[in-house]
């Protein structure tokens, strides 16, 4: 049999939780936790880009890798067939052609490089340890991987005929980097805001006292 007090509490259970722990408590907890283990086995990195685009980079890279292999295959066949038909003169021609393959690319590269540099400088302004985040290594790994796949793609650019697709993949690669950096910046900005609120509270008290 339930008495009136039990009923009353049950009906209003949620309203009894009126307290909130202070926001900096997580920082204290984080400091006591052992550093992240198992980084080596973390091969799949989920990057959340909002609720709409949530993809696993591994899948993405598998697709890019498959595309590269396909293009490489096609390219090689074409080059071999060409060499068979026209002999040594084509190799000189292809080197000359390489400079004309994607004339717009240097400009694009310069643009994205400056963007990425800007984001990286912004990122370096945050003290990651103070903010209790241990994710920088993951981000660095991710960027390094994007870097190597970029170099790989660029090599392909001069040996495969389908330059448009390669250039598109190169641009996409650069855009992903910016997204990764933006996401990290956003996370840090949120954390920083929380921290600033905490720091500014006692200061306000001081000024009102004075």
């Amino acid at each position: 049999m339930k008495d009136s007090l039990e009923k009353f509490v049950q009906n209003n259970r949620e309203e009894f939780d009126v307290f909130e722990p202070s926001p900096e408590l997580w920082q204290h907890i984080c400091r006591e936790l052992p550093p992240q283990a198992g980084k080596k086995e973390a091969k799949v990195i989920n990057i959340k880009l909002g609720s709409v685009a949530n993809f696993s980079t591994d899948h993405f890279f598998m697709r890019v890798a498959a595309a590269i292999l396909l293009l490489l295959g096609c390219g090689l066949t074409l080059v071999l067939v060409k060499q068979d038909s026209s002999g040594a003169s084509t190799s000189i021609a292809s080197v000359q052609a390489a400079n004309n393959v994607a004339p717009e690319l240097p400009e694009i590269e310069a643009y994205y490089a400056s963007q990425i540099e800007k984001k990286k400088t912004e990122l370096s302004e945050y003290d990651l340890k103070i903010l209790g985040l241990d994710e920088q290594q993951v981000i660095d790994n991710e960027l390094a991987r994007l870097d190597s796949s970029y170099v790989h793609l660029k090599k392909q650019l001069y040996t495969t005929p389908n330059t448009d697709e390669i250039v598109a993949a190169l641009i996409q690669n650069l855009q992903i980097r910016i997204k990764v950096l933006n996401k990290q910046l956003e996370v840090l900005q949120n954390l920083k805001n929380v921290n600033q609120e905490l720091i500014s509270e006692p200061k306000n008290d001081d000024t009102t006292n004075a």
Partner: protein
Amino acid sequence: MKKLSYQDVNHLVIDRCKSGDHRAQYELYKLYAKAMFNVSMRITNDYTEAEDVLQEAFVSAFKNLHGYKAEASFGSWLKKIVINASINAIRKRRSELVPLDEQQMADVPDEVNEDYSEWQVDKVRRAIQKLPDGYRVVLTLYLLEGYDHSEIGEIMGITESTSKSQYSRARKKLLEIMKEAQFAN
């Protein structure tokens, strides 16, 4: 506390926590911090102490996560840790919790009018906070955290019947405090 489908929603996050993923740990923390903080607040009745308990409980939960076997929901597993840490905290603070039975047995009148139409959550909550430690712990574990008397006995190291009698005394005392509070208001 919110009802969540623990097995589905949290088990991925919990797996990530097991490998020490700080972001996953933060996700779990955000999910449970408020509810657990209130559990600890009710038992310790002290904001600073409740925060210490919460910190200690989460650190210990993350360090011992491999011991969580998904028999119960993660929430109730965590809650046990929080409750134990809270009770330890008040035991350290005051020895008066230990002799539970000797505490204020005589001064509670038998009949108290139960006019709960006028009750307000805030009034009840504040009255609970005015209860002495021993009463408050048993009463909140039973009324708010939903444990039965045999579970409370286990948690507090007392018998089931002690928990029952302690609860009924606590309940009477609570109603008495509420009456006083009504006069005061």
